[in-house]
């Protein structure tokens, strides 16, 4: 697959996530949209990692070297770390949202205006 | 004051660590249930096999006839009075001429109903009956689809005619001896 396809797909998902963040008013859904953004990033990273792997493989082939390389693993590991962080973030984020809900019985971010005055 | 010597001192010791684990107790419990796999099963295959009733089992009511096949009941109402659940209703009627072969006395029960849903099978009606017209048999009330079906009419309870259908009569009589 041309890398462009993956870039466009990832960016499309990313933009959908951003649109969601901007248009939705439910804190949980905003948060979900952020997760979607992270996933778009993950997909892009994996695609790039494979791209770099392929490029390195070609290079090695041209150079006549043994075609064993682990170029690209770092991209996938980064994805792994993103997932780790996302999990941590979710635990905290949902705790905060629940705390909020306990107090105002709503998760509408439009109600977050107490600080404006 | 100690009335009996059966009271046991309750131990208030906190559970030890091992006891708190419960593992041993769980294993014990499992062993107990497992041992039941090999116990003899008291269950019987009911409709095929039946367990015998005791002699004094009180089942469905039967309205008795005498040896000539005449109904014993005179609609005196003592059974209805005795009934604690007020399950019995009856209507009396005078015996017309030519009906002597049907009713033993001049007065008979034109209508005799027992509501089996109310009846508690205490047997007081049997006790109260001076004519030995009602007794509790060893069968119990079969299931029914409607409430109405549980209101037993006289026809439902009358014992088969001893002369016309002697076999059925004997069967219905069961172990009950005819006390005439």
């Amino acid at each position: 697959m041309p890398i462009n396809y993956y870039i466009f797909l990832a960016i499309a998902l990313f933009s959908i996530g951003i649109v969601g963040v901007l248009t939705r008013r439910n804190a949980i859904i905003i948060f979900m949209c952020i997760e979607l953004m992270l996933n778009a990033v993950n997909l892009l990273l994996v695609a790039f990692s494979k791209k770099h792997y392929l490029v390195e493989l070609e290079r090695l082939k041209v150079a006549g070297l043994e075609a064993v390389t682990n170029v690209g693993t770092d991209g996938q590991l980064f994805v792994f770390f993103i997932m780790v962080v996302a999990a941590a973030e979710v635990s905290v984020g949902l705790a905060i949202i629940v705390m909020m809900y306990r107090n105002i019985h709503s998760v509408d971010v439009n109600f977050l205006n107490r600080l404006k005055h | 004051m100690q009335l009996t010597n059966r009271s046991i001192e309750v131990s208030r010791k906190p559970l030890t660590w091992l006891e708190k684990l419960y593992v041993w107790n769980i294993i014990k419990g499992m062993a107990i249930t497992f041992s039941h796999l090999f116990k003899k099963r008291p269950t019987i295959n009911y409709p095929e096999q039946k367990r015998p009733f005791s002699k004094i089992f009180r089942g469905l009511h039967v309205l008795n006839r005498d040896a000539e096949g005449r109904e014993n009941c005179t609609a005196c109402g003592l059974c209805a009075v005795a009934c604690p659940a007020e399950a019995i209703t009856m209507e009396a009627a005078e015996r017309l001429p030519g009906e002597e072969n049907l009713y033993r006395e001049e007065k008979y029960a034109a209508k005799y109903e027992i509501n089996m849903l109310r009846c508690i099978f205490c047997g007081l009606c049997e006790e109260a009956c001076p004519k030995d017209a009602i007794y509790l048999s060893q069968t119990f009330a079969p299931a029914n689809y409607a409430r109405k079906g549980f209101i037993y009419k006289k026809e439902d309870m009358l014992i088969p005619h001893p002369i016309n259908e002697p076999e059925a009569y004997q069967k219905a009589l069961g172990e009950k001896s005819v006390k005439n």
Partner: protein
Amino acid sequence: MYLLVIDWIFLLEKFILVGFIVTLSLIIAMYTTYAERKVAAWLQDRRGPNRAGPFGILQPLADGGKLFFKEEIIPLASSKFLFILGPSLAMITALLTSAVIPWGGTLHIFGKDVSLQIADINIGILYIFGVVSLGVYGIMIGGWASNNKFSLIAAIRGASQMISYELAMGLSLLAVLMLTGTLQMSGIVGNQIQGSNVWHVIYQPIGFFIFFVCALAECNRTPFDLPEAENELNFGYHQEYSSMKLGFYLFAEYINMFISSAVMATLFFGGYDILPFVDETKWGLSGNMLTILGFCALMAKTFFFLFVFIWIRWTIPRFRYDQLMNLGWKKLIPLALANMIITAAVVLWLNK
């Protein structure tokens, strides 16, 4: 990456295998319901179902038929799609797990080696985990879609219970993975067959214990059957369900039992290994024979575990909810962690 390579015979083989395994799971699940009733009866000194067919063998069919022909009720206030999705998901996730379990060695049929494993992917255990973690959705969606507070509470209970126990389960598995060094299910079984042929339960009794307890919880079996605690929640998350949708839920539970028994057998009891400490290849049996025997051995182990599941159900009373959570988070997870660390230390020490 088999899915992407078109090898028709291979595909056919796999289809047959899938069909076989799925049918097998369904049948076993069916008969587990029967076994449950039977064993329950025995443990309670009763006889159990014995009317349909000899010894009541046709009872599951009768039950199934009854469920099929009962009236289908979808509550008016429920969300219909999700209401149907719930049991379907439960069923699908239950069946998916069987794909990576090695049901036996390889058969030689028509000059081909046929592996008795649908997909020998190198992340088998993770796959199982993934699928198991999806099992929650069936319960949650079904419970929520019913639009009934009892169902909802039960669904939430079920979800939190499953999430909580998944952790301890994973941790207990890690110890096994340290011993084997692979996530491949066939590798794990192979590890128990090779060499001195020691089953993992010998090295990992605590790990097995934890896994077993967690398996009980994951399957919502007593003493962890809080989601369907009938005395508090009427009937739990499937209260509003009727007919075969209810049947799916019940079925999924039994399939889960079956699969988790199989997984336990595979991970801790040598899988299709017939006996521990014995090298079966020296018995002089043909390969196919051994494979079939192995399959039977696995089934035997699985049935044993199924029996234990049932046995426990009729012995141990249900936990209270807080006790359940305490057990999961405060007892099992630390225990599993300790087990893991000790295992790691020993492995490091032995391998130097």
